[in-house]
């Protein structure tokens, strides 16, 4: 126990550093994790701060929260829809990455094959947290998020299993392919089984109680417990945590009230933040700056190798699975960031590897830094350039105006309250009141104006208003209970009613107010024939602006290709808007044909470009529209 005592002040120092860095990073506009690393680097040079953690400790303290948090908030249904692609990227993809990166590094700069393969395995774990944040901000298709997050979750698991196998091969100096494969399935599968069993067992408990403190504690037990139990049984701890997290996050949803779910999500967001910060800070401390600069060539090789293997995964391997919109591939390619998991694995390399260990930590760090900076910071531009941004200027403008109006109104109300309580005298109130009121009114009018410009925003506003109302209700009930006006039982029952209503207002389709249908009387039927490649983007673009569509598979036309026909009801006066949406989502494209259809007897001609319009739109007048 004595070696834990000096740990406490150390942990406090680290937390303080992390907090200060977070505040500073916001001012300077660099990613928080990058700032942490830089601070760690500085500290390692200037101070005698030494953290002595064994590799096993690093993995078992920091991995479970990072993995559990990702697994917990991933939606199983959306995961299942994209299972094949995610599976391809997470299993064969990881093996492919290991082999390609290992191969390139051993052939190029002449790294020892064993170490190169170990590096290849650990660098295969992706961490798209920062790009997912960008996606959410810009409103890119949810499916892209699901693909990257799902891939990351599963490749964390498989990368660790393969990393373990590669490491033991390196240490023992021998490797047998058959037993390697058997080990992979045994360790991986075993981990998943342990996670499911434990997760399911705890779920039964969680379903029986409605106390968010206890339920949060149970999730902590399950996160660390499944990891430790699996490791004891010599199977994959990380995959156990993944399985447990997925179960509790999805099926567990029904056993947890929305209040509990919010608390649990917040708790794990915090713990994951701590773990992430710790890993980045530790890496900064562990890196020797001069050595980093000396190895720059090796680092460049590593970055190139990682990019090559990512390109192969996304552009070749994923073609074995279901079709993806072609505009998504560059995003998936560039979104393969590396982060805390790869760093933690590097830190966990046994000391016995000696100088190799330092080198591997250095290049891991170099690759992670590159992905965070070069890829993370430019992803926003890439997404905009590919026109995958669906959160338009109007949305942003509406949010700005709405927030300003809300702030002004709240301020006004507060001052009015103070005046009524006699805390502000009449003369002051008379001077202040008209100014404040005028400002609040003007801002409110600005909100109305932007809503009139873009009526589709009204549906968003409606949902937000409903949520706000329910939240306010819940707040009042809590106050009543606290002040003893209502009894505990009454409170519980009333809160349950509010929670049920909140649950219903949550729409699970990625795109928003889908269920509310066309905003207004449908006066026209729009038929849009789109290429398969544009299907997702056109139908998504229409749906989030309240033009939900039905798809019919079709084919033909000049080039005999498969396409889709969308049917959408269009309210009065919105045809222009709908057509513009289609136009923006389906660009003109140039296709190459090697022979004109029907001209088979002619000698094969050079491929020539045929201008293919993005989509064809028919608009019919609707005499009558019924939705029953």
């Amino acid at each position, binding site marked *: 126990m004595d070696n834990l005592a000096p740990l406490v002040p150390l942990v406090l120092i680290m937390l303080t550093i992390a907090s200060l860095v977070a505040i500073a990073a916001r001012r300077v506009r660099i990613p928080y994790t990058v700032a942490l690393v830089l601070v760690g680097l500085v500290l390692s040079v200037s101070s005698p701060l030494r953290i002595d953690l064994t590799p096993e400790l690093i993995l078992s303290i920091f991995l479970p929260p990072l993995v559990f948090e990702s697994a917990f908030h991933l939606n199983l249904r959306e995961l299942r829809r994209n299972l094949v692609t995610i599976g391809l990227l997470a299993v064969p993809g990881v093996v492919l990455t290991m082999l390609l990166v290992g191969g390139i590094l051993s052939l190029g700069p002449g790294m020892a094959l064993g170490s190169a393969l170990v590096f290849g395995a650990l660098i295969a774990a992706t961490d798209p947290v920062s790009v997912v944040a960008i996606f959410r901000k810009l409103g890119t298709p949810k499916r892209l998020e699901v693909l990257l997050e799902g891939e990351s979750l599963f490749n964390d698991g498989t990368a660790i299993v393969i990393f373990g196998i590669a490491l033991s091969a390196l240490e023992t100096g021998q490797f047998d392919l058959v037993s390697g494969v058997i080990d992979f399935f045994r360790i991986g599968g075993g981990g998943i089984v342990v996670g499911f069993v434990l997760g399911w067992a705890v779920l039964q408990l969680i379903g029986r109680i409605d106390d968010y403190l206890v339920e949060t504690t149970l999730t902590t037990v399950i996160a660390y417990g499944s990891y430790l139990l699996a490791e004891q049984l010599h199977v994959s701890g990380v995959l156990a945590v993944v399985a447990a997290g997925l179960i509790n996050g999805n099926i567990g949803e029904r056993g947890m009230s929305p209040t509990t779910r919010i608390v649990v999500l917040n708790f794990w967001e915090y713990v994951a933040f701590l773990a992430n910060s710790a890993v980045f800070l530790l890496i900064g401390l562990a890196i020797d700056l001069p050595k980093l600069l000396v190895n720059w060539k090796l680092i460049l090789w590593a970055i190139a190798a990682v990019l090559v293997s990512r390109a192969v995964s996304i552009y070749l391997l994923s073609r074995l699975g279901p079709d993806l919109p072609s505009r998504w591939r560059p995003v998936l390619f560039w979104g393969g960031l590396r982060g805390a998991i790869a760093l933690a694995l590097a830190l966990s390399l046994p000391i016995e590897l000696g100088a190799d260990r330092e080198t591997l930590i250095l290049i891991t760090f170099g690759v992670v830094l590159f992905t965070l900076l070069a890829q993370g910071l430019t992803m926003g531009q890439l997404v905009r350039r590919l026109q995958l941004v669906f959160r338009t200027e109007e949305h942003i403008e509406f949010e700005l105006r709405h927030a300003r109006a809300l702030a002004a109104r709240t301020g006004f109300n507060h001052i009015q309250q103070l005046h009524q309580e006699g805390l502000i005298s009449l003369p002051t109130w008379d001077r202040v009141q008209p100014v404040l009121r005028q400002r609040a009114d003007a801002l409110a009018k600005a909100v109305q104006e932007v809503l009139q410009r873009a009526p589709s925003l009204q549906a968003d506003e409606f949902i937000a208003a409903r949520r706000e109302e329910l939240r306010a209700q819940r707040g009042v009930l809590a106050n009543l209970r606290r002040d003893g006006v209502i009894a505990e039982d009454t409170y519980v029952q009333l809160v349950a009613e509010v929670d049920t209503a909140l649950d219903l207002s949550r729409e699970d*389709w990625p795109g928003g107010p*889908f*269920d*509310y*249908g066309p905003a207004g009387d*449908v006066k026209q*039927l729009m038929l849009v024939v789109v290429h398969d490649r544009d299907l997702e983007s056109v*139908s998504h673009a229409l*749906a989030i602006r309240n033009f*939900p*569509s*039905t*798809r*019919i*598979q079709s084919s033909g036309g000049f080039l005999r290709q498969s396409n889709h026909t*969308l*049917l*959408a*009801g269009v309210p009065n006066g919105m045809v222009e808007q709908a057509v513009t949406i289609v136009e923006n989502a389906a660009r003109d494209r140039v296709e190459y044909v090697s022979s004109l259809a029907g001209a088979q007897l002619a000698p094969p001609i050079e491929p020539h470009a045929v201008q293919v319009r993005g989509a064809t739109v028919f608009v*019919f*007048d*609707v*005499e*009558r*529209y*019924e*939705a*029953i």
Partner: protein
Amino acid sequence: MKLLVVILSDVDAENVLRKLIEAGHRATRISSTGGFLRRGNTTLLMGMEENKVDGALDIIRANAQPPEDAVQRRATIFVLNLSRYEQV
């Protein structure tokens, strides 16, 4: 003459179609997906005289099951004007 475009869930399609045919309407059935009813659904195309439209709508209303989700709709119907209808 009017063209009715009816979008229903697969579950209701069989039933509604049968009842429509029994009542003397003719329909073409297309499989479709997503959009209004979000799952596998069916689109029916029917041409008919103007005075038969209300009858058809009644049949659809009577035979489409209420959905599990209160927010979803059971059927979406467009009635379009046909300037010409030929059966060749």
